[in-house]
């Protein structure tokens, strides 16, 4: 203690040290840039993105590089296992499974990638408007949500399925999206109702920021992590819904192929001729897994307070 006293005695008149200020010589970062920076440091994102990119490239260009047509029959190689000529084998009428899987993958991907985000978009708009505006608008929208929730979508699809024969897969896509947004809209609505009374939303209102801007700038970004998860899982769910509908014969019809129709044809032979089932199923699982990884990484990047970023 005496040492300390001595030291302080000599330093009484010592000059006050300059406070060390950290000068931040950093370039301004836009929000998008920041999210991208975070994403780039997430290995999950890269695994998912690379896998997804490969799958998409494969689905688009694969058929062009493969000499065998998806629908022509090879009478010499009916029900054959994978060979040099038919990479994934053939079915019992001699059609090439590799070519069919690629065509099916294309269709499933397109339907999933459109219907998933479309459902989320409807959910975000309906949910946030209902929650923010309230009153009569809210009442009507909630009534609509509840009505659609009560209607059994699968049975409706089954009943309406004869129509699909005339209309294209686009109708199926819209239909799938139209029946997938209600739960999320409820979630967005309740989140919006609580966000509405948060001070920063009030502040924006008091500044005179118009309603659509408040929704787009403050409400939607604050439920963005939910929406992104929903959109990504929506892709997964839509691909699954499409495949299961097609599996039961109500979705995509012949001569169109999707992963669902392929699986449905392949299940019967899953034990005896596994290539009919295993390859389409493997492609389906790989696709779903890649999309899920991307969604997960995106959530962490968009929302600095969620998941791995939480301190």
């Amino acid at each position, binding site marked *: 203690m005496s040492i300390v*006293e001595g030291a*302080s005695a000599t330093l009484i008149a010592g000059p006050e040290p300059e406070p060390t200020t950290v000068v*931040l010589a950093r370039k*301004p970062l836009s929000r998008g840039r920041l999210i991208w920076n975070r994403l780039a440091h997430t290995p999950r994102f890269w695994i998912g993105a690379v896998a997804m990119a490969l799958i998409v490239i494969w689905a688009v260009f694969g058929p062009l590089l493969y000499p065998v047509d998806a629908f022509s029959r090879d009478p010499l190689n009916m029900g054959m296992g994978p060979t040099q000529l038919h990479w994934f084998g053939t079915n019992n009428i001699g059609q090439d499974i590799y070519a069919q899987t690629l065509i099916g993958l294309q269709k499933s991907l397109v339907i999933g990638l459109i219907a998933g985000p479309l459902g989320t978009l409807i959910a975000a708009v309906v949910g946030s408007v209902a929650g923010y505006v309230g009153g009569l608008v809210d009442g009507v929208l909630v009534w609509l949500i509840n009505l659609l929730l009560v209607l059994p979508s699968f049975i409706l699809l089954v009943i309406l399925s004869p129509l699909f024969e005339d209309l294209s897969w686009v109708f199926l896509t819209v239909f799938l999206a139209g029946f997938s947004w209600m739960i999320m809209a409820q979630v967005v609505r309740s989140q919006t109702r609580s966000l509405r009374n*948060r*001070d920063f939303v009030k502040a924006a209102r008091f500044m005179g920021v118009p309603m659509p801007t408040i929704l787009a700038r403050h409400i939607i970004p604050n439920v963005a992590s939910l929406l992104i998860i929903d959109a990504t899982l929506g892709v997964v769910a839509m691909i699954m819904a499409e495949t299961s509908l097609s599996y039961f014969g109500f979705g995509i019809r012949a001569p169109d192929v999707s992963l669902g129709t392929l699986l449905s044809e392949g299940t019967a032979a899953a034990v005896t001729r596994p290539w009919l089932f295993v390859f389409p199923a493997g492609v389906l699982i790989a696709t779903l897994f890649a999309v899920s990884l991307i969604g997960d990484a995106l959530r962490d990047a968009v929302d*600095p307070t969620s998941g791995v970023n939480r301190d």
Partner: protein
Amino acid sequence: MTDLVTDLSAAGRAPRRSPLLRVRNLSVTFPQRSGPPVNAVRGISYDVHEGEFLGIVGESGSGKSVSSLALMGLLPSSAQISGSIDFDGHKLLDMNDRQLSGLRGRDISMIFQDPLSALTPVYTVGDQIAEALLLHDAALTKQAARSRAVELLKVVGIPAPERRAKAFPHEFSGGMRQRAMIAMSIANDPKLIVADEPTTALDVTIQAQILEVLEKAKELTGAAVVLITHDLGVVAGHADRIAVMYAGKLVENGSTADVFSEPHMPYSIGLLRSVPNMQTAGTQRLVPLEGRPPSLTALPPGCPFAARCPIAVDVCREVEPLLASHGTFVSGMTVPVAVVGEEDTTSAHLSACHRSTEIASGALTRADIFPRPEPLDVQHPARPEDRTPVLTVTNLKRHFPLTNGGLFSRRIGTVRAVDGVSFSIQPGQTLGLVGESGCGKSTTILEILEMTAPQAGQILIDGTDIARASRAERLRLRKDVQIVFQDPMAAIDPRLPIGEVIGEPLTVHGVGRADRRARVQELLDLVGLDPQMADRYPHEFSGGQRQRIGIARALATNPRLVVLDEPVSALDVSIQAGVINLLEDLKEQLGLSYLFVAHDLAIVRQIADTVAVMYLGRIVEYGPVAEVFAHPRHPYTQALISAAPIPDPEIERSRTRVLLEGDLPSPTEEITGCNFRTRCPLYRLLDPAAQSLCATIDPPLVAHDGVDAACHHVDRNQIIDSALAFTP
């Protein structure tokens, strides 16, 4: 067991009686899955004697609550605790949870900050108190426990205790719940009561009541009390000793008088100088304590306060000072310094600072360490000298229908949130709007800021009636009126970089991107933040910095009026002074007007020119600050001023309090005549004829020598003081 304990403590007994609670070198560390552990408490030692009142003061994150939870054995199992805690012969840290349970609630009891979460919502209050009794006394019958519970509720001042014992916690107001908690804590006649911020969630008038009840409980049971708080005013009037905590360490420990009048540690000095004192507020500027406490995960070597300390020397950054006695002078000679070890810590005035000796000897005066900043000497901007008030509110009303919430909801009453409020703010002036929570302050400012036609009355902004304003006019008016919210965490969108947050009001008025950016830089500089920080996200900032961001946003459009909704009440004490000073400077520099809503009277006195006191949707007193605070006309104002604690033990102990009875009545209640008479201290002293006047006629706001007051008996309010003088 008892004999053994007595023997042991008798054997180890010093000439003085041994302390009831003896904490030595207590450390608490929370390991983290990722990153270094959090050293929440880093070796603290203190004693509490029987019947002593110890106040532990510290800012959030200083470890004050963690140390008391360690005492109760209530820390999560992941916490690593070392050191020793001796309580009445028991080694608390060596006991298992079962043994501790026998002690908790019987010998040591705890009062928590949030009385709502501390009471179980599904049992009646009476049953919960009875449970506390039955747990520790198997011989007690249920009947006896219940009647004792009623008795206890009566002791803590709950009206109609028989009926109230059968009520559920949600039927109690915050103050009543805290009373029930105190009743529960004294149920088993404890030796030690630990109260963790017991009044922080309560209004100032209720806080005064609760502190009185706590004092009474202490007298009744003879228990020692450890009161943990961030509010120096709260401890000033009640505590015998004060321990100041900073960054997990005790930095000063001494008798209340010593710590308040002669603090030895720069942190305590800064803290004491930064708190606005109601007696002196408004006459001088506050002394800010800059910076923020260090992170407890990565403490720098040396004194944790060194980075904020204006007198830090090299040794402060290298060696952490020990808590030691510095200041006892015997005929000019320094008494050899004793480092606290096994000795009794009771009588000494201890501090942890390398330069305490200089401070104690007077070589370094407190005013030198934290000099009072000079007021800004600025030329007032050349605003046109029009005397149109920036804001005029006339007879504003806002009633909410109260429905029974069924399928076919039926109106069963009216909440008179704002019930005829009038005031006006001149350019460059500050109006303080004061009142307890639920008095309608927030509704009033929301009505102004929503800019929709009020239910009744008139709101003029810059002389324009907002009910008649066109859309474009309203947008222009919005430019002139901005708001700063109470909670800086909630007021800023966490998902936007602060540059965009601050620039947002400008987007509404069509300011281009480049101009916006330049303005944001300018604003950041104006509120004392680094303009380089514009691209950072809100979570990277501390509470005080975020409040500055909120202020910068409010100033973006060059408003004429800024509504400040409790702008500092969510901030730590040491940060408050800096923000208040900033607000005062900005007002001077930019010629702003403020509508300052607050419950802290000292801060209102510091910053406001005019004050309006609200009670149940009405203004009961309205006039110049100095006059209202010096000679309150209305009994409610008198009670409010008297309830506000003053961080000065001498004043605090010598002054008499006008205590209000009970809680704020629900605004749905229909009270005939004067709506304050149910709690009015003056009403109770009046003769029946005068009382009947209060009960029948609603007093209007009438001018009394420049101050408007809504009371029939302004001329007779001295009788409250004379009545207090007679009560012991």
